[in-house]
């Protein structure tokens, strides 16, 4: 029997993954600081989109308020750091637990319903908490800083305080987080949970008739997704040294995260990373070129991109790339075989 027939396609094999990982690991040594910053953003948004994809891509429930979990993660760790001098390494876990609890509270009633209820309540909760933070200076003894947000004080690159001296530190941290998130997604997609979610997405009645509980798999996925999102929020606050309600609680952030996962391919393991590689540099370039001159162009592009993706590539770019590479590979191998003969 031909050996090649048993071989996996290149894109699903280990080699492809190792090459990709190696490229991402060594890249910061070869580029300028600005490009480094873009790479950090690419990986950061890939991480957020992977977290979004964990629940929304696999279960088909569109959350358009995922920024709220990002915000909670960032705010909790920042408040603990600034007021109580607790290291963000601990603060991020607390923030993640709070975000997870909120996600479960939202998910419990809305996952029982079919229809747009989950989407609407996710938007409502994001606006509710965003408005609350924006208009509250102090909550009891806790300072929320209202609309101005927190600017984090520099502590001189202390790693124990989640602060790195160079951009490379942040880059490897978020890259590691992304690797874990992708690994979790990969494990989930091959586990019972993943199959449950896909079954519920495809046909909830059929899934129920097979004895699948409709609520709990989605709750579990939601909890993990919110947890990851909140960890991303802490990274966001620590990296940008600023956190405010107009960025992390804003619907633009939610939509951006969703868009990246959709462009890449929802419900695929590497889709969000691909989406981020495509979308983030374009948006950064547009923001750098046109900020201050033409307001709104950046978001206009998002809108048009979203419409085009939904219209022409409902399964995302990922599918097309995989198909293209597979075809190329088949062509390559068939060419080599015929040469041997």
């Amino acid at each position: 029997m031909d050996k090649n027939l048993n071989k996996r396609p290149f894109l699903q094999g280990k080699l492809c993954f190792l090459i990709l990982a190696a490229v991402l690991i060594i890249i910061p040594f070869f580029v300028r600081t600005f490009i480094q910053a873009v790479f950090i953003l690419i990986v950061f948004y890939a991480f957020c989109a992977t977290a979004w994809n964990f629940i929304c891509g696999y279960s088909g429930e569109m959350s358009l308020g995922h920024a709220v979990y990002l915000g909670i993660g960032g705010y909790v760790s920042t408040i603990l750091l600034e007021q109580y001098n607790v290291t963000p390494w601990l603060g991020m876990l607390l923030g993640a637990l709070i975000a997870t609890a909120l996600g479960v509270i939202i998910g419990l009633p809305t996952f029982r319903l079919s229809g747009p209820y989950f989407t609407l309540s996710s938007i409502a909760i994001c606006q509710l908490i965003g408005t609350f933070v924006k208009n509250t200076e102090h909550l009891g003894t806790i300072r929320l800083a209202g609309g101005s947000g927190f600017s984090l004080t520099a502590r001189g690159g202390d790693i124990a305080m989640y602060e790195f001296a160079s951009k490379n530190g942040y880059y490897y941290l978020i890259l590691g987080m992304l690797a874990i998130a992708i690994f979790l997604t990969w494990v989930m997609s091959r586990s019972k949970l993943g199959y449950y979610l896909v079954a519920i997405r495809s046909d909830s009645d059929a899934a129920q008739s097979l004895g699948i509980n409709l609520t709990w798999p989605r709750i579990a996925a939601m909890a993990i997704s919110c947890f990851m999102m909140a960890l991303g929020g802490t990274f966001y606050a620590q990296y940008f040294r600023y956190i405010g309600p107009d960025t992390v609680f804003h619907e633009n952030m939610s939509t951006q995260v969703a868009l990246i996962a959709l462009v890449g391919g929802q419900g695929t393991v590497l889709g969000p990373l691909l989406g981020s590689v495509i979308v983030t540099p374009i948006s950064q370039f547009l923001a750098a070129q046109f900020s201050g001159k033409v307001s709104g162009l950046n978001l206009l592009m998002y809108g048009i991109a979203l419409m085009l993706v939904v219209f022409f590539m409902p399964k995302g770019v990922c599918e097309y790339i995989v198909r293209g590479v597979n075809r190329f590979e088949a062509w390559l191998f068939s060419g080599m075989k015929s040469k041997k003969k």
Partner: protein
Amino acid sequence: MNNILLAVLHGLILGGTYALIAVGLCVIFGVVRIVNFSHGSMLMAATYIYWVFYSNYQIDPYLGMLVVIPLWFIIGFCIQRFLIRTLLLRERAEVISPSSVMLFTIGLNFTLTNLFLMIFTSQFRTFSTWAYNNYLRLFNESFVSQWGRIIAFGCCFLVAGILWFIINKTELGKRIRAVSQNRDAAAICGVNVHSTYGIAFGFGTAAVAVAAACLTEFYIISPNLGATFGTKSFMIVVLGGLGSIPGAIVGGLIFGLIEQVGAQFVTSTMATMLSFAVFLIVLIIKPSGLLVKKGR
């Protein structure tokens, strides 16, 4: 007059405006069964059309409606007929709120909002029309309200009444109801499903053109208008029950009441949050909405 009673009156009037915006969305939601996130930006776009008419030709928005309502009906019909129909056909298996249509309307919302932001900048615009500058005074001048608000309140019931009449009492309405109940069965009976969807979508957008005209008569307009009213009108529709026109009115009045009466006790932003909280609580306790019987 007592402050609370005044707040109730103001709340009802504000609620009328909310209901007016939500009614159009309610028709789209109830018939086509899609979550139309572009509703808020259609509202915003219409207000800017009125602004162009007003600033260039001094045409009062109430008069401008004669042009904008048919225009918006056609635009709504075309959006449904040429864009959303394609997506719906692709997702034939799912009858209720296919997510790709929802994402498409979000994209449309982003595009429209930022297009108008680029063209008209984020500057606030006001109309200095008769209804904007004149006030209704009642009860020894203790109750003062712009005429624009009062007219919007009246328009709410007028538009809702017309839509209710069309849907429940006419031949066209019979077709619309048939399609909303089961589009395959309606198609078997000889109803052209997609043009009926188009007409229903057109009614929804035409209703938002009326809402936009009423809004310009008392509100400051800016490209962010869609975000302010779009999400709220969604919550109102869900609060009242998907596809129920009386439900949309009740939901709108409740939102207006909460915001105005709540503002007597806490700050007005807290009152807005209170209305979101009420929405979430209703969603958890009675997700089918306030005015919809469970059997439906």
